[in-house]
């Protein structure tokens, strides 16, 4: 088990280097960053700035410096806000995480019971209805779902605010929007992994022992169905953060996603790089945690 953990940790470091390389590439492919920073300056000033910022150095040297700067938390100053990019991103992080966790919790609390019920009553009307909802949910563009919810609850019924993040009521629509995006995928996994274990011998044995149906499902079947769910929920996290970026834009939620989208429109690359890197870092960490949890949950690896 220890060697497995070490191998995972090594891979974590390699992946992080790869992530920095991709983040670095964003600015590289954009052409000339200096002309974005000072569009009206004379060419001589731009050349001086280019030299002093090291844009004339060979790419590998620039990349090494970039990694060094990242390690110290320095992504450069925002072209637009004229202050360090990373703190701007980090200040908006709690909002995005709250939205994401809210949506994930909502998704799981729907996906697990509905998925179990679907698997237990396979091919029932309930199961077919759930499958239909899954298909609809995975086919809806998340920003459109958000706008339709605004139309219904904020414009027609006037029960919830259109946008913002000031009150608890304002969290409802963004959270629900993001949840409609992630619930169908999770529900599908819960259903299929439950179906896989529900007819196995040990579940039948548990039933034969006279254990109550409820206990059989929760204790025997669900614990074994949980493994794929944990992996998928981890992989989902990246998707969910991508969805959060859109949701924040639709509802004007002051999170990292909205900051990045705004920065992209202004070609403010330090913010874009810092935001993309931080979000990727979170995904990498969540996946690492999932790997470790997987090792812990899977006795086949644990006992080795």
């Amino acid at each position: 088990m220890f060697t497995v953990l070490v191998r995972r940790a090594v891979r974590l470091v390699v992946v992080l280097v790869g992530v920095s390389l991709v983040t670095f590439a964003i600015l590289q492919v954009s052409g000339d960053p200096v002309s974005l920073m000072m569009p009206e300056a004379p060419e001589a000033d731009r050349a001086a700035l280019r030299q002093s910022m090291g844009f004339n150095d060979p790419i590998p040297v620039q990349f090494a410096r970039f990694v060094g700067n990242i390690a110290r938390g320095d992504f450069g100053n925002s072209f637009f806000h004229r202050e360090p990019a990373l703190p701007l991103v980090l200040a908006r992080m709690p909002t995005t995480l709250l939205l994401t966790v809210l949506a994930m919790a909502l998704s799981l609390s729907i996906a697990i019971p509905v998925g179990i019920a679907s698997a237990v009553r396979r091919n029932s009307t309930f199961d077919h209805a759930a499958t239909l909802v899954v298909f609809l949910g995975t086919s809806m563009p998340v920003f459109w779902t958000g706008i339709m919810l605004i139309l219904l609850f904020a414009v027609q019924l006037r029960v919830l605010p259109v946008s913002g993040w000031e009150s608890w009521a304002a969290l409802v629509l963004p959270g629900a929007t993001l949840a409609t995006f992630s619930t169908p995928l999770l529900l599908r996994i819960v259903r299929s992994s439950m179906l896989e274990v529900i007819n196995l011998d040990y579940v039948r044995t548990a039933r034969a022992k006279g254990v109550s149906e409820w206990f059989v499902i929760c204790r025997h079947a669900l614990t074994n169905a949980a493994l794929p769910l944990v992996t998928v929920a981890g992989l989902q996290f990246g998707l969910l953060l991508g969805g959060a970026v859109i949701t924040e834009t639709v509802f004007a939620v002051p999170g990292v996603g909205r900051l990045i989208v705004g920065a992209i429109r202004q070609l403010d690359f330090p913010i874009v790089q810092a935001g993309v890197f931080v979000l990727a870092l979170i995904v990498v960490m969540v996946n690492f945690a999932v790997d470790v949890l997987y090792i812990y949950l899977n006795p086949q690896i644990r006992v080795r």
Partner: protein
Amino acid sequence: MAIGTFAPPLDVPRGLARTAERSRIWRKFVRNPAALIGALILLVVIGAAVFAPYVAPHDPTRQSLIRRFTPPVWTQAGKAVHPLGTDQVGRDILSRMIHGARVSLIVGIFAVLVSLIVGVTLGLLSGFLQGRVDTAIMTVVDVTLSFPQLLLALAFVAALGPSLLTIIIVLGLTGWERYTRVVRAEVLALREKDFVEAARAIGASPTRTLLRHLLPNTFSSIIVMSTLQVAQAILQEAALSFLGVGTGSAYPTWGQMIALGRDFVSVAWWLPTFPGLAILLTVLAINLVGDRLRDALDPRVV
């Protein structure tokens, strides 16, 4: 996922076995009403995209200030000339949606082609060569998986400058990793099979083994995956357009129509609603067809 081989039994003529196989797949496919409905919707969307200039009732860019905010025909103020109403500058919504189908389908199909070429090649190499090549390729896959795909696409499309070609390439290059993982897993399972061993024994070169024996056996997964990926690419393109880094031209796209309609949602609900329904129906149709295709191509599902 089908791990069956394409090699026919010895006593049946090759062509005949293929035909039988195809008709079996076709029968399994048409037995499902949902998939048939999906295929029909898809035909309508493809038809609209191909013949857009002929079937659209109006010029999608033509503005008319007296006709702005005309509601759909079935509402009280609706007019029959604009069945789905007009937008804030009086352009016909239905015509814009018909033209928008072109962008969605072009991006969906070509982005997936890019992903397919990159992903399948890397997957074949990874599974066949194993060792260091495999480790290197799988590390790249891990790195790609670490980014929210949409965010990465957003950053690179903006950095490269929005255009149709940029969107296709960026979506293609951010969405290939699924092909690599699936093809690699299949090749790993297949390479131990007897027919691969037999090919090697009669002196087939590694390239020939890879292209003539391993690759064809991954086709059914690739077809299913590609169908579902087209749906994903259409959603991603719509999201990019919505967030303002679209094709960079005035040509209508569904995502852009929703983005513009969003500001008028309280006065003209039809502006964002219909283009969204177009995306929903198209993606749903593709998903239904793809899902059924998976069962039809899987020899284990009767």
